[in-house]
């Protein structure tokens, strides 16, 4: 009797929660939802951005329905591993460190970083070869988002820097403008579009060259998925290649930027 009761309660508990089988029918996609112009929510409550377009495009080609799950960036990989969603389409760079824990599709966007700071902060942060000069970072506060390629780069290249870690990317810009941090390192495309080219950003500029060392930034940004799902990965890659070759990926980019965000050779 007791075991029956336990079984009944367990079934009831399972019935309350959603049981999902990683089928091709519905795939849950995790993204930050606060990372304009790549993935964000509009006032109408719709998700929009480059990553969202890529997701929709891929979903259509592989014939899967997509559900979107919003997740704080620093919990993105733990959430993927905990089966909160099946794919990460959130401008996540394909790095060696991440490949140890999860798998990635081929790349669908460049991955680069650049430092932004106030024009009145007159420092030479990089030498002519493009290497950072550690001594010139002294006394400056640097704002970075946790668990990003930028924080990894800083950890390895400038371990002595005064780094402040944030939960999201939006607060970086806010606190740079407030003067809470002197420098931030972030995606240069986003920085230019959403900040430097606007009135709020006129007093700020890039403080160094674009950094794209593969060690930290990988070969690009890809779709993240759990390891051991070769068939799904293959379908994703086919879909991405089709988006590249058909020119659709370029149209996604041109909606936001006057240039495309990928290398054509990724379509081979």
């Amino acid at each position, binding site marked *: 009797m007791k075991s029956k009761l336990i079984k009944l309660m367990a079934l009831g508990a399972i019935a309350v929660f959603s049981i999902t089988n990683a089928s091709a029918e519905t795939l849950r996609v995790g993204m930050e939802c606060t990372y304009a112009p790549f993935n964000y929510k509009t006032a109408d409550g719709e998700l929009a951005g480059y990553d969202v377009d890529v997701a929709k495009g891929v979903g259509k080609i592989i014939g899967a329905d997509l559900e979107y799950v*919003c997740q704080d960036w620093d919990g993105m990989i733990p959430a993927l591993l905990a089966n909160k969603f099946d794919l990460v389409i959130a401008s996540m760079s394909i790095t060696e460190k991440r490949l140890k824990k999860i798998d990635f599709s081929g790349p669908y966007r460049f991955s680069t970083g650049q430092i932004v700071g106030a024009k009145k902060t007159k420092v030479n942060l990089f030498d002519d070869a493009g290497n950072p000069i550690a001594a010139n970072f002294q006394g400056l506060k640097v704002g970075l988002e946790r668990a990003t390629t930028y924080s990894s780069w800083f950890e390895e290249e400038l371990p002595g820097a005064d780094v402040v870690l944030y939960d999201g990317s939006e607060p970086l810009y806010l606190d740079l403008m407030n003067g809470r941090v002197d420098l931030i390192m972030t995606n240069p495309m986003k920085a230019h579009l959403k900040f430097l080219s606007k009135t709020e950003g006129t007093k700020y500029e890039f403080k160094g060259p674009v950094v794209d060392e593969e060690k930290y930034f990988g070969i690009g940004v890809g779709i993240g998925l759990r390891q051991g799902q070769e068939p799904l990965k293959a379908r994703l890659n086919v879909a991405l290649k089709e988006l590249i070759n058909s020119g659709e990926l370029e149209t996604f980019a041109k909606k936001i930027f006057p240039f495309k965000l990928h290398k054509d050779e990724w379509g081979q």
Partner: protein
Amino acid sequence: MEVLNGWWDDYFWGAIVVAEVFIASLFLMILFGLIGAGAKLSGSRLAQKTANTYTVIFRGTPEILVILLLYYGSAITLTAIAQIFNPEIRFVDVPPFWAGTIAISLIVGSYATETFRGAFLGVNPGSIEAARALGMSTLQTFIYIRIPEMWRIALPPFGNHMLSLTKDTALISIIGLNETLFVAKQAITVTGKPFTMYIVVGAIYLGFSTIITLSVMGIEKFGNRTSVGAK
């Protein structure tokens, strides 16, 4: 103020989510509180020790930590349990709504355990004796004497527990629940006006708190309508 245009409906739906969490967690909180109080008042040493462990754990751990743990950990644990019954199941997932609701119910439930326990102990023994003298059974005594008297004592602190539940809902935004604070974060990405957005969130929660406080006051008046001295 125009910056809020287009976001009002998002905030509205976020407020609905807060209400949904409140109702679900209220039910669970009462359940956990009664079970805990029952365990502590029972004679069983095992039940008391278990209940004490429950209260120590959930009164001593920060709410945000409980929420994060239940969100990440629950899937792993439940999957392991589910696979005992049906090895075919690949994984069981707990959506943020339930992870968060259960988390805050467990936390406030541990406080409610103490409240209910104190309230049960506060029931006038004379009333119990009178009920027995009148020939009422244990169950009748429980339903007609203990519960009504216990509720009157428990109501003020219980009102506070309800307020805690409401406010803890804001913490569930950390695991992606689409309530008002979460809406605010998304709105800030587009509008760049954090003060405005967060003040709206504060106002919505203040509204909920007011409704709850007024309701509790009303229930208290109703519950005490037969008491001597009540106006």
